[in-house]
């Protein structure tokens, strides 16, 4: 069903957790559809210095969150915003068709967190 990369990220997810004094927090999804992703950001000089996630969802939601955090960590805000769900799917080496929405959630989650960061910085 899932490839090894997906299973590896599901079994050993990277960057799990919360950041107490996060610069940005994004939460997407809903319990109805069975997936909630919450992202915590630490940003310095426009660069994502630290990122953590918590995800309620299936293996591909967890793996998508995990690999996404790896992909954006150390990148600029603009680079992170350029990340698409396709990038996530590709990095995972593919997802079953029924599970592609999980990668969309990962894309939406990082965007939500950056929006929150910008909103907070704005004020």
């Amino acid at each position, binding site marked *: 069903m*899932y490839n090894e990369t997906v*299973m590896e990220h*599901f*079994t050993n*997810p990277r960057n*799990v957790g919360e950041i107490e004094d996060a610069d940005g927090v994004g*939460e997407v999804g809903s*319990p*109805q*559809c*069975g*997936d*909630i*992703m*919450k992202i915590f950001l630490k940003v310095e000089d426009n660069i994502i210095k630290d990122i953590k996630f*918590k*995800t*309620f*969802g*299936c*293996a591909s*939601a*967890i793996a998508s969150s995990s690999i996404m955090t790896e992909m954006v960590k150390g990148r600029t805000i603009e680079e992170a915003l350029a990340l698409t769900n396709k990038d996530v799917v590709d990095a995972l080496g593919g997802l*079953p*068709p*029924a*599970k592609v929405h999980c990668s969309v959630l990962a894309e939406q989650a990082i965007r939500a967190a950056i929006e929150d960061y910008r909103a907070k910085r704005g004020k």
Partner: protein
Amino acid sequence: MEKRRIYVDNSATTPIHPQVLEEMMPYLTESYGNPSSIHFFGREARKAMDKARERVALGLGAKTEEIYFTGSGTEADNWAVKGVAFANKKKGNHIITTKIEHHAILHTCEYLEKQGFDVTYLDVDEYGLVNPDDVENAINDRTILISVMFANNEIGTIQPIEEIGKIAKKRAVYFHTDAVQAMGNVDINVDKLGVDLLSISGHKIMGPKGIGALYVRKGTRIDNLIHGGAQERKRRSGTENVAAVVGMGKAVQLAVENLDQHVRKMTSLRDALIDGIKERIPHVRLNGHPSQRLANNVNFSFEFVEGEALLLSLDMEGIAASSGSACTSGSLDPSHVLLAIGLSHETAHGSLRMSLGEINTREDIDYILDKLPAIVEKLRALSPLFKQCEGGKVSV
């Protein structure tokens, strides 16, 4: 250490019982005749079919000429509902069923709605029980069929079929029950139950896959579902799957013979598993009825975790179970059964079914109880819905 494999998904399917396979083997090898042929090979196959039909009839308290073999439990369900609906549409177009039926019934009913039939989907209570009064109240003068499952495949709740049977009889409405999960776990006698149609499936009772049977009470008006070469006394066409029919016959025989012993064994394993989980894991909810439930059914919701993740984690420990999570099926809505008993979406998503079988042992239960708490804990730690308080106490 050798990897353990513990199969607790017996409501999804069961292994074939060795005695069943043994009786099937000749019909997969040298006794390959078509039962419709009049020569030696055909007669040999016909004889085997007759014997199997007798066994099934005996197991259900029915007459042999009331038993029809089908290609699956699903086909038996489709046939019962569509067959009665189309054959009786001059009399009426109203069908009564429940919200927690298997999709073989529900999707058939939805299809019939498109064909102009009216379907009432009855609610169930928090334990998954149908109220016989609701059935009676739903009957109107256009009602032609009541279809209520005997035991639910997800939460194991056993319905008061006998009571509903009395109502159906009193009101002269045909009554079908899907006994696919009940068979082998509950005593079944079609006359005592007062059913006119009853579906069973081979692979749920240690028989082969791809075989089911429909009991049709003599005199029931029912159209054919599959037309063709006049097999099954012109009621269900297609060259008979002799080996599977033989297997089904043996499986029913064994299921009925071993019923008491099986129920005793399953109940003891089930209760050990239920109690163990309640003891070891906080924030759980047992789904289904506490006592009117299948002896082999365990269904829990684990708050804050999602079912597929749970299943895959269990699978990595060699434990094969199933879940009511939508993720398993690729749709977004979780199990209609869990929603029907009032679970929130997120709780329904976090459900786990472990269905026991003859192959399971007390060691299996202990192994599961050893592995499951840590898995749930790990997934909860990942979950944004769950927060650990300072004092180590769990709260939401």
